[in-house]
């Protein structure tokens, strides 16, 4: 029996557009489990990104509750949310969002300081950079790195503080297929080591890395599919399974 790390109850999110309201998330009840590589897919405008913001404490829902690691983030103050984000979760964005005026190493350590001693963070950052093949690039600024390198730095940054959940917002969306694959390999490898990952994507190649696949449309979780651990040699078969699943849902 897996531990629940994210739990939503009657989660709703609405926006006011002009004079009309738009209900993006409609009474979503969802549980996400520890150690899973959960991928959220769906039609464009179906609410997947909004769901990711809501279940990652980045945005407050209009109604309903969101518990992350057993804590109700909807009732937390801004200060409590900051502390929570720093110690428990981290992000990998589609547009990397590295701090442009810090070097690769600084981008990682800056986020990590405060979660451990400086020495440990520095050591860990260098190890992560080495692990992701970025040792040579540690003193370069984001604008001097390729997209793939930037995204790998972003993953290192996500890992530095020992976050329990990594959220990914289309992390391969801005990358070419080769660098996209490198990034997915990194995430898969992390998941294999027990890291919980929640990722939104519309990319089939990314979706096949999931151990659990959720499909969203019209503000609802329409369906889900549990997959076994990812193996590179089974990618073709896995892709077909995922494709069929999505096709059935009208993707």
């Amino acid at each position, binding site marked *: 029996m897996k531990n629940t790390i994210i739990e939503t109850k009657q989660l709703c999110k609405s926006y006011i557009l002009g004079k009309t309201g738009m209900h993006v998330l409609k009474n979503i009840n969802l549980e996400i489990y520890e150690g899973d590589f959960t991928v959220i897919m769906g039609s464009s405008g179906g609410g997947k*990104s909004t769901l990711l*913001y809501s279940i990652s404490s*980045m945005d407050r829902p209009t109604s309903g509750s969101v518990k992350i690691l057993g804590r109700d983030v909807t009732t937390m103050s801004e*200060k409590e949310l900051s*502390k929570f984000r*720093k*110690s428990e979760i981290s992000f990998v*964005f589609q547009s990397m969002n590295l701090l*442009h005026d810090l070097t690769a190493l600084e981008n990682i350590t800056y986020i990590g300081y405060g979660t451990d001693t400086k020495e440990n963070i520095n050591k860990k950052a260098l190890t992560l950079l080495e692990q992701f093949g970025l040792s040579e690039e540690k003193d370069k600024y984001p604008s001097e790195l390729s997209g793939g390198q930037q995204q790998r730095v972003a993953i290192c940054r996500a890992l530095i503080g020992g976050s329990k959940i990594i959220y990914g917002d289309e992390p391969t969306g801005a990358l070419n297929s080769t660098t996209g694959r490198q990034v997915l390999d990194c995430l898969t490898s992390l998941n294999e080591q027990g890291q919980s990952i929640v990722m939104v994507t519309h990319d089939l190649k990314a979706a096949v890395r999931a151990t659990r696949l959720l499909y969203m449309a019209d503000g609802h979780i329409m369906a889900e599919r549990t997959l076994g651990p990812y193996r590179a040699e089974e990618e073709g078969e896995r892709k077909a399974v995922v494709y069929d699943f999505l096709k059935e849902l009208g993707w």
Partner: protein
Amino acid sequence: MWIKKLKNKKIQFVVLGLILAFAAMLLTACLSISVEVEQYTNERFSREQNADLFLYATKGTEEYLASKLKDYDEDATLETIPGYVIDTMDLYHGKNLVSDYITPLFSLVLRDYHTMPYQMDLTDSSYDSDEMITGPKQGEVWVQKIIADQHSIKLGDTFEVKGTDFSFTVSGIVNDNTKAVSISTGAFVYYNPEDSTLFSSQKPFSFISITSQKDTTELTEWVEEQYTNDYYAMLYSTLTDLKNSANLMTSLVAKIGSLSAGFMFLITIVIILFFIRNTILNEYGTIGTYKSVGFSTTEIMGFYMKAYLLVGIISIIIGALLGLPVSIFIGNIVMEYMGTFHLSTATIPRLCFVILFTILLLILSIYLALKRIQKISPVDAFHVGTTSSKSKLKKSLIKGAHTSLSMAINDMWKYRNRSVLVILVVTFSLYIGTMLINMTHVFDHMENNATAWVALPACDAFLSKPNSSIPDDLLSYVENSPYVESYITGTGLFYSDLRISSADPLVDLEYANIMSYNTYDSSLTNIVYAQGRPPKNDSEVAFDYKTLQESNYTIGDTITLSLGAESKTYLITGIFHSMMSPSVAFVNDALATYPKESYDTTIGVNLKHTSDKAAFEADFRKQFPTYRYGTLKDIVDNIKQSIMSIMIPITMIIIGIFCCFTLLNIINLILMNQSEQKRNFGIMKAFGFTNSYIIRRNVYRIAILSAIGASLALLLNHIVNAKIFCAVLTVDAYQTNWWLTGTYYGIALTVIVLVTLLLSRSIRRISPKELME
């Protein structure tokens, strides 16, 4: 498209517009004041309406000079007005006018103020408006406005003549060219010719005015050559001297203001260039997109140029026009005793100049800044992306920084150009503010530093008997008084009436102030010389700095001086600063052959406890009701009051303008920073940094930069201001009042920090979800 650019950064454009408007306002105001006052004084002090030379001469000098004048210049005319030097006459208006606050005071006959040899206006009178009045009636006096204001003399007030039943009624207040500013020597009380006998106990003098087609300097030299021991002028003023004195404060204000406005405008241009550069860096990607879809460089430059120009032109025009009421306001303050300040057509060319010149400069600057758009290719732009160019990046100063303070220091280092701008703006504004505040304070507390202003001893009180050398009873009183710690004797608060001259034409001592004391011991007098030391024996002399400035003499040289009929060689032992130039200092022994009434007239007293001043004065006045009790404050009060009436409002206005300018610049830089860093702040929030951490980082950065700016301003103040003050006023009297300066800096830095804090509140509204695309 350019309207969209304006809307996107509307707050920053508004702030930039305000900065430009402030600079244009100050520039227009100063140029307008400068030209209008110059034009007004040129007219008011014109040779057509005034004589060229005014002499306060001994009686009979007018006939003596008249007999020789035609030989010198047959077209020259000489006019004389009789009067008296009020010295022993106890003319009371609450206090004794002469011994307590107006020295020297002259009474002068006034028949028709329209026909005086200098411009005079009746500004207020007790008469009916339809009454044709040309001068005071019998029993009345007219008073100069500057004196009336300083001593709260109003129409209808009376001047009692102590010891008689008679009193004069003040029936007119006048502005005249002899007293347009308080630093002009002496004051006049104008009376009706029928009242002359009431002043007959006083020393008569002749107020001689000479008009000549010849050069005034030449005329003055000729007049001085004619002097004899009986016929000479105690004081003189040329029309040029009077005009220069009248213009002194105005030109000082206009110069400081114009210089400040010029600097302000330059800084504004630098900030605009910086703003444009950053806008281009931030919009690299957008510019690349425009180019890739077929917009030409000129068209893209046009988007930005139109936005900046619209804001710039509107701001400059509004600012320049607002400068006109500001110039009227300041002009009325500086010209209070000369007339009414009004704008004339002479201002129009200045106004047009400010508008056209600043707009042209703005266009040129914007064009140069936008030229870099030419170099942007779509490929480069897409590669660099939406953040910034590589050239902008600098290494962190503090490695492994994490705290908001260390990150603030790194930010300062990484964004050096911006840091330099903040420092520049704060340094410049605080420096000007420090200078004005301390100048105002120095003027306001002249009495505390009078030794520096007039090189007189800093004794607690000066005691004398009118028209007498120091009487034995006074000396005995001082020697036995329980209040007195020490004393000196000599010329006191006034100068000797001996005449001195030098054979060297480069050392002009014709109207020199002669001071003489038994000792200049600094523990008794607090006199500190700029160079060398005071004289110690009868063969030594010291001069003020300005007198020796043009000559070849210096300390250690000997100089031959004529005192009265005697000539003697003296050793120059020291140079002192004094605004009463020319001034010469001797010890009493050097004047021993002359009557003591001319130099040994006053006892300067140092009290045991300064808190005893009131008790000592009361005791002295009780013991010697007819003797004089004076303090350095009495001497400087006359000078300082009108300076203060000009300095305080102008200081406040300029400081106010600079505070706004500084704040607007800081607001602009903070807004610029926040708009650029918005994404970074969002990322930081996504990774758990609190709002207060991010705000602290911002506040520390601005606070540290402002503190550096403040330190530089203080350093500049320390290095430069005393020298500027001494160069302009020839007095080494500039002092920094640390309490006042500290308070000013404290308030300025607190306001800067508060504004930063206030503006940083918008950081709270930045949401990390904006990062998700």
